[in-house]
């Protein structure tokens, strides 16, 4: 494979050059916008199909990119073909044959691949599409698993998943994660190299490995979602495109692996959280907390989808999985038409289960909030106070923020103010900082110790 890799690196520099040209041209005409759309719809399937054939993620992606470039050259004149996906796939396969032919030191394996491809290429384009279609589902699932392979760092998994499955450009990924583009590009190149060097097979893992491999996939998807939902830095409180992307990936996975309860649990969690997107920011982008949100803005379609996904998880015996439990908590909120209808004791019970399953200071923090709502801020404060010395929460702005809230509700405004100001110094998000500053100001204006609110 050594030779192939060398070749593919040269190729890769070339493809990068094209992408620069592409991004300039793509905005130019309607056809290019249509190609953009086709690419987004078809790219993951095409790349997945190609990996199965050429057995190399990097090479497969480049071949797909080559096909895209060909489309950009030809479609503006010829028009978009009736079956654009099949056209792209056929073109990529031609390129694969060319690529292996050019290679002076054909290995036996490559010869086999070429023979196999040529045989298939003789079929009509239409048949080709049907031929690959049968395995498309499996290929996509394999692609998800290889992009989220534990041999890669979490950051690399995220970047590769967005790139290969989301069809996002390096620039888009960089923008979403507020990282320099070359950093992301490097990350993706290195990830592909690692997959090749470690000879990671293109397959759906079997049990017993499946559980841990699946949780790696779910972790990546939820990380993408959270990055979009509660952006850790930057001016926008959330970056909705990432939420959408994660939701799409989750829904795909739920169709491809329908018997895995935690997949449905995660989808339920994301659907219900996403249902609040429109309600959780005010007109100027400021955050609005759950209990202050206008629930009429909650997206009932997404809530219904979320509740249905949760039911699927429960029917598969997964009610106590970590994602399903979190989904069950968000479902309690989703079912409450008014904030005062919220079944807080039930939420506390779910948090207790979650704390047993995946004990963590963050879960405790959330449990404290639920306890405060169910049984009063004094009860919540008791839990919080056990977390104050927790090293992992030392620079977590939500700890002082929540503690400040409890103190505020208990009428201890001076102490609350100190906590809010501490939270201000810890958050990296501009919107959140303004929000916390405002709360600190309210404390300052409140008459000292005027009693609980």
């Amino acid at each position: 494979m050594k030779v192939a890799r060398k070749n593919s690196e040269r190729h890769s520099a070339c493809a990068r050059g094209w992408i620069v040209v592409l991004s300039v041209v793509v905005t130019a005409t309607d056809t290019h916008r249509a190609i953009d759309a086709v690419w987004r719809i078809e790219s993951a399937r095409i790349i997945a199909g190609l990996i199965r054939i050429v057995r190399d993620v990097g090479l497969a992606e480049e071949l797909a990119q080559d096909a895209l470039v060909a489309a950009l050259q030809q479609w503006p004149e010829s028009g978009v073909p009736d079956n654009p996906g099949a056209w792209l796939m056929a073109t990529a396969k031609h390129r694969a044959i060319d690529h292996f032919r050019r290679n002076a030191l054909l290995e036996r394996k490559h010869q086999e691949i070429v023979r196999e491809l040529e045989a298939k290429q003789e079929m009509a384009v239409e048949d080709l599409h049907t031929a690959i279609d049968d395995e498309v589902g499996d290929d996509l699932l394999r692609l998800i698993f290889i992009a989220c392979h534990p041999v890669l760092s979490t950051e690399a998994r995220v970047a590769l998943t967005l790139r290969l499955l989301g069809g996002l450009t390096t620039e888009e990924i960089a923008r979403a994660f507020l990282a320099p583009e070359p950093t992301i590009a490097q990350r993706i190149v290195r990830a592909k190299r690692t997959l090749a060097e470690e000879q990671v097979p293109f397959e759906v893992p079997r049990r017993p490995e499946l559980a841990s491999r699946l949780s790696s996939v779910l972790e990546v998807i939820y990380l993408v979602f959270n990055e979009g939902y509660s952006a850790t830095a930057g001016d926008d409180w959330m970056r909705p495109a990432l939420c959408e992307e994660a939701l799409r990936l989750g829904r795909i996975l739920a169709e491809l692996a329908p018997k895995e309860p935690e997949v449905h649990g995660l989808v339920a969690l994301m659907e219900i959280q996403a249902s609040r997107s429109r309600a959780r920011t005010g007109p100027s982008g400021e955050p609005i907390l759950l209990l202050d949100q206008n629930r009429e803005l909650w997206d009932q379609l997404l809530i219904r989808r979320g509740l249905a996904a949760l039911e699927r998880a429960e029917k598969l015996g997964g009610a106590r999985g970590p994602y399903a439990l979190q989904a069950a908590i968000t479902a309690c909120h989703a079912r409450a038409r008014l904030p005062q209808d919220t079944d807080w004791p039930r939420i506390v019970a779910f948090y207790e289960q979650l704390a047993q399953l995946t004990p963590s200071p963050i879960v405790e923090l959330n449990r404290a909030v639920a306890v405060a709502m169910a049984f009063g801020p004094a009860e919540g404060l008791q839990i919080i106070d056990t977390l104050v010395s927790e090293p992992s929460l030392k620079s977590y702005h939500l700890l002082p923020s929540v503690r400040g809230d409890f103190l505020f509700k208990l009428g201890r405004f001076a102490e609350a103010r100190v906590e809010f100001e501490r939270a201000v110094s810890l958050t990296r998000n501009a919107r959140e900082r303004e929000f916390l500053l405002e709360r600190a100001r309210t404390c300052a204006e409140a008459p000292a110790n005027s009693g609980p609110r």
Partner: protein
Amino acid sequence: MRFLMLVKHGENPGPPPKEFLDAMTKLGEEAAKSGTMLQSGGLSPLAKSTSVRLSRGQLTTIDGPFSESKEVVGGFAMFELKSKEEAIEGAKQFMELHKKYWPGWEGETEVRQVLGTEAFDPKA
């Protein structure tokens, strides 16, 4: 961005060929697997429908069939997509299936963006 696709055709298109139904089932599965289709459904024929109309200050309830309608909405689907182009591309694929597997069928797919869903897309 969310899009509502409305499929319109003549009142009585007749029974669809089996090849069409097969292709449709497959497209539906693919749409579900693409993670973009939120909801879809077929609608009962106009003969079994009712229209509640306001005209000149008068409310009238009329049971179908309605003689004046040439085209009816036969089905709908709701998608969450990145762009209008993506929606159009999807509608084209859908109509290609009609062209290929249901000779003589005529109709249209109306691509309508659901307003108020731009919040999901800061660029919109």
